[in-house]
């Protein structure tokens, strides 16, 4: 098991190097960038040449790559042309808002998705099956930014139940900074009205983000459960009189969840991408809306830092899923190497 984990860790490092090669290629090899972008749109050829020299863009590509990676490892992601400060400072300031939204969506969709999957696997009837299939296809087909707009129209525009944008209402001061999560910080400070306001702002983006992933997860859990339920050991357990609940949770679900872990890790790619769009629609002050503003302003370093962060996060999550696989599945864990 240790050997397997070590090998996976080594491949994680290789993949991360690969990710940096891709972002390097995009930012250094595609013509027009980044010197022209860094020098501004009205820069003279001399200014661009100066920037080229300052950023080391006149050196051969392999040397440039080494410089690039060194800068990344030092946390230097360049400067924003909008805030004129380092990109990483803006990033750190916006990270908690994004994490709070992402965690809320994950806490909603994973238990619900697995629960729905188990339920529909218990009674794989024709109509329930067709229903969940339609729901799953819709979950993938409906554009998340459009769903977010429609939710905004219905729940804020029409019924005025929920605020349409932002993290807190106007005039509500953020709670004292501890974690950066407004909900948790409000609880820690005992500011219950702030907590209520933060939750009312959080619920719509979180639900929209959860719904798009929920259906696919339910469907995957269902098929994984069906496969496990058909196996001999389940029949044996049933014959021995194990209760249906215990059978489903202790015997079937435990094995059925192993492939589901991988599904969840792969889904994170979608979750990261859709979060951009949801944050943009709800003016959520996180990394996603920052990236979209960066795109609009041609603030190239912002876009590249977010892309690099998203890819790294995705790679690490997938590595963790692989590691969990090795730890959870005795067939892999005890395999002779």
């Amino acid at each position, binding site marked *: 098991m240790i050997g397997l984990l070590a090998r996976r860790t080594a491949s994680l490092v290789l993949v991360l190097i690969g*990710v940096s090669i891709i972002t390097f290629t995009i930012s250094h090899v595609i013509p027009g960038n980044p010197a022209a972008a860094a020098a501004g749109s009205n820069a003279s050829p001399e200014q661009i040449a100066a920037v080229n020299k300052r950023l080391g863009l006149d050196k051969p590509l392999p040397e440039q790559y080494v410089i690039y990676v060194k800068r990344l490892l030092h946390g230097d992601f360049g400067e924003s042309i909008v805030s004129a400060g380092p990109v990483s400072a803006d990033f750190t300031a916006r990270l908690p808002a994004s994490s709070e939204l992402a965690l809320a969506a994950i806490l909603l969709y994973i238990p619900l998705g697995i629960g729905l999957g188990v339920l529909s696997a218990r009674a794989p009837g024709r109509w329930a099956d067709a229903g*969940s299939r339609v729901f*799953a296809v819709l979950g993938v*087909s409906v*554009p998340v930014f*459009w769903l977010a*707009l429609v939710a905004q129209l219905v729940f804020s525009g029409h019924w005025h139940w929920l605020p349409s944008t932002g993290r807190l209402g106007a005039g509500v001061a953020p709670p004292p900074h501890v974690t950066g999560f407004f909900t948790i910080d409000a609880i820690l400070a005992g500011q219950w009205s702030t907590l209520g306001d933060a939750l009312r702002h959080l619920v719509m983006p979180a639900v929209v983000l959860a719904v798009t992933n929920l259906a696919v997860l339910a469907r995957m859990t269902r098929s994984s459960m069906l496969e496990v339920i058909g196996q001999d050991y389940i029949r044996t357990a049933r014959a021995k009189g194990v209760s249906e609940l215990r059978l489903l949770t202790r015997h079937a679900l435990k094995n059925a969840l192993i492939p589901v872990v991988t599904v969840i890790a792969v889904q994170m790619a979608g979750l990261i991408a859709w979060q951009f769009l949801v944050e943009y629609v709800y003016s959520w002050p996180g990394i996603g809306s920052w990236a979209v503003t960066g*795109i609009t302003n041609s603030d190239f370093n912002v876009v590249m830092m977010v892309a690099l962060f998203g890819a790294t996060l*995705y790679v690490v999550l997938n590595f963790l899923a692989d590691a969990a696989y090795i730890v959870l599945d005795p067939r892999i864990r005890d395999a002779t190497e």
Partner: protein
Amino acid sequence: MEPEPLLEEAPLSVEAELDIMTIGVRALRGRARRALGAAADIRHNVGAMVGVVLLAFVVLLAIVGPGITGHSSTFQDLNNSLAPPSAHHLLGTDELGRDIAARVVAGARISLVVAVIVLGLASVVGGLLGLLAGYYGGIVDGVIMRVADLFFAFPQFLLAMAIVAALGHSLNHAILSVAIAYWPRYARLMRAGILSAKTTVYVRAAEALGCTSPRIMLRHLVPNCVSPLLIQATMDAGIAILTTASLSFVGLGATPPTPEWGAMITEGRDYITTAWWIPFFPGLMISIAVAGFMFLGDGLRDSFDPRVRNRIGF
């Protein structure tokens, strides 16, 4: 006396060529039978039929064009801006008084063309690289597939976003970047197919009879390996439309006044509470088109590969 050969170097004897053809025809016949069976199967597959109906609707709109609505997609009628859906303007008008129905129909053509170009590029380039990797193996395989692995590590939307941000914002760049994000899975599919087809008797026979490599690859291997690529392309067509629309929504793809669905939603975003029909109908059309491809691709997969049925997800 023996007759002189017509050609100095006949690449293969007539008998050998005939033998290969017989084996090939047999394989073709089997394939045709499977395809017919699959087609018959699809008629009983409710999901696939729903997909066909939805797609037929979108394709029909794209073919007939904006004229069907009785309005032009570009004509501005400023006296009649932000008009709600009515008998005259079926889906209402936007802030410049343009007919939403005409623009939505014009968008159907754009989205279908986008899907065809993205998947054409991704599957031809990916398929070709997968073919080379699978057929030659060794270092060719190593290099191509490691590069493909690199792309797999990157979430596709982020990759496409970063590439367009570098290339400059335009619909053409968005199409190119989505294709770049998609080719690796076609390379993998093709390579897997080639690896298993390479060991079959008819390919060995073709090799033994001295067929050239390109001939074996294109005449014997590729036709037997394309169906998984076609199914994947059908399912990806929906995602390609969705991704391109998302890029346009954040300002990386089509720009106004192009009647691209994603760009139309951005334009109408500010009017969500006062004139909901501007962003609503383009989004509905994206959902219909994407769901159509999803249902159809899903049904095709079931029909071509019964092992998958009920095993993997939706």
